[in-house]
């Protein structure tokens, strides 16, 4: 695929050393696997409900927006964060939401627009966040969360905190002017923020080559004076390694980085979109690079994951999802008067 590091940050082994330690720990590796599977299965459930509900009385209000096939990016990147770090999520960051402590219950409450959802039923699907867990609320205007992520990073810097922000966006968002402003601004102030660009090759139906005139979006980092890397987003360990290095760099006060993670959106923009505009062969090619499959093979080769463990992790996740769906399904919907209640 010709993935390569376009620009390396100055020698800093601290982040790498910490990353390598984690990647040698069977418990941590299995935990990453748990989050990958959780994300996949949770979103499969969302898709299943979307496709099997009564349109006259839908349980999910709106559509599902999934990260299927891209879980390696959101899980790997968020796993590089520590307690007190912040997340500015993008459309396809369910994995990051899970790693950072949001629950299956919160996600289904949100998708079902229940009164006790993170947005009180006032917003839906992936327009979610949790301030108590340092997660900003995503909005539909692509790239618009990034300057807000800068602001959180500025506050962390102002207070002398050693925390960082993970700012996530996609290839479509990268065409927004506000993303340019954000990157330049973050670099000028050496803000503790790491930009993770999920390049999944399509912005709804617009392919990458109609989105930008370069192959690697991380090239832009040079123009902002920050390190930029293009990596394989379907290799969760690679994602974790590189984001960890960038996170530790930001934590040391050396400023932002841009990590472009190449992947493929393995479906439509949302559950309503059959993605007929994407050639079948493209899906077939990328299916072989499935991030969870690749990671599972690695764990099995290393003797870290047995078939029994695999089954028991899946059973645990299934239980968590079923419990959350049942819980959310039985929670009340908002009533009309809730609209005007102050929060």
């Amino acid at each position, binding site marked *: 695929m010709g993935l390569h590091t376009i620009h390396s940050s100055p020698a800093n082994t601290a982040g790498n050393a910490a990353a390598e330690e984690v990647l040698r720990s069977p418990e941590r590796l299995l935990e990453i696997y748990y989050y990958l599977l959780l994300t996949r299965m949770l979103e499969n459930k969302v898709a299943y409900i979307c496709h099997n509900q009564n349109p006259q009385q839908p349980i999910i209000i709106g559509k599902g927006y999934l990260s299927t096939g891209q879980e390696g990016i959101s899980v790997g990147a968020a796993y590089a964060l520590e307690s007190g770090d912040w997340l500015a999520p993008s459309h396809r960051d369910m994995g990051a939401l899970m790693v950072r402590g949001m629950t299956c219950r919160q996600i289904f409450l949100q998708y079902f627009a229940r009164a006790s959802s993170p947005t009180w039923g006032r917003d839906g699907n992936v327009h979610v966040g949790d301030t108590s867990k340092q997660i900003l*609320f995503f*909005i539909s205007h692509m790239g*618009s969360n*990034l300057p807000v992520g*800068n*602001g959180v990073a500025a506050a962390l810097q102002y207070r002398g905190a050693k925390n960082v922000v993970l700012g996530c966006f996609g290839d479509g968002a990268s065409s927004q002017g506000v993303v340019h402003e954000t990157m330049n*601004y973050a670099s000028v102030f050496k803000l503790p923020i790491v930009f993770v660009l999920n390049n999944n090759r399509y912005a709804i139906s617009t392919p990458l080559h109609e989105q930008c005139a370069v192959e690697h979006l991380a090239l832009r980092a040079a123009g902002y004076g920050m390190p930029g890397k293009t990596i394989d987003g379907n290799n969760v360990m690679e994602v974790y390694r590189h984001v960890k290095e960038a996170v530790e760099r930001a934590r040391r006060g050396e400023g932002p980085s841009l990590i472009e993670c190449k992947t493929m959106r393995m479906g439509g923009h949302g559950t309503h979109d059959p993605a007929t505009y994407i050639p079948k062969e493209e899906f077939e090619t990328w299916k072989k690079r499935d991030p969870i499959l690749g990671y599972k093979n690695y764990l099995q080769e290393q003797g870290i994951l047995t078939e029994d463990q695999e089954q028991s992790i899946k059973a645990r996740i299934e239980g968590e999802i079923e419990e959350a769906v049942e819980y959310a399904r039985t929670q009340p919907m908002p009533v009309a008067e809730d609209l005007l209640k102050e*929060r």
Partner: protein
Amino acid sequence: MPNMSYGEAIRDGLRTAMRADENVYLLGEDVAQFGGVYGITKGLYDEFGARRVKNTPLSEAAIIGEAIGASIAGLRPVAEIQFSDFITTGFSQLVDVAAPYTFRSGTHLPFVIRAPSGGGLRIGPYHSKSLEALFFHFPGLKIVMPSTPYDAKGLLLAAIRDPDPVLFLEHKKLYYELREEVPSDSYEIPLGKAVVRRPGTNVTLVTYSAMVYKALEAAAKLEQEGISLEVVDLRSLVPLDEATILQSFAKTNRAIILHEAPKRGGIGGELVSLLCEKAFDYLAAPIIRLGAKMTPIPVAPALEDFYYPSVDEIIQAAKRLVQY
């Protein structure tokens, strides 16, 4: 009590807020050593340093974004947008990100955007606009437009300590024109409290910001002709002090709404609706709206002066109402 100009009172408000609360800091283009293009933040860099008075790149969206994010993380940023006209390049951050944030998340955003607004300085279509009506349309944003030095400081302190986003639109023509005694200590004027600048009995004139002075000039001239004009200065548009407007109107039964922004789509239409919906029985004459003409703001003096509602137009409007 020190005598301060409108601009000095704003600076004193910033200084007072920053001394009282470590979480308050300033950001914006040229606000540090240079002191801002109107010199409002002059000297604050010397007192508080680069950490609390931050020069930014020329990036309104990023500036407003920083204010939003820093306020989510618990600070109380006060961002200066060099001219209110330039807010439009960061418009989405204010109306899409900030305005609905609390409604969606329950998290409050205690930040202030300060911006020189309004015209009369012969600086044309890109440095003179009054954009309050744009923001008035969006739930979740407060809008303050002070008209006096005393109000400017007290309202600014209230805005900085408010839990929600406040757009603080300063009239640039008033920065150095006006002086009055302003307390050097801390005081707040609550948002959403209008003030009757001049009591009257025949006609209510509702206005805000620099138009208050044209209204007062007209009122003085009208008095000589036996017409008593009551001038209500709104001070903030959101929250809106409906009670003071309605109380005045219940007394006079006649109203003029005056603003510097274009009449079409301006705040005036909303205030007329307010009176029609809540005080129709008091109506003794049609309500008159006075606003700028529907053109971009021109530079040449004769053109710009003609663009805004004049004192004479106010006088004629009041006469029409009492004769109706």
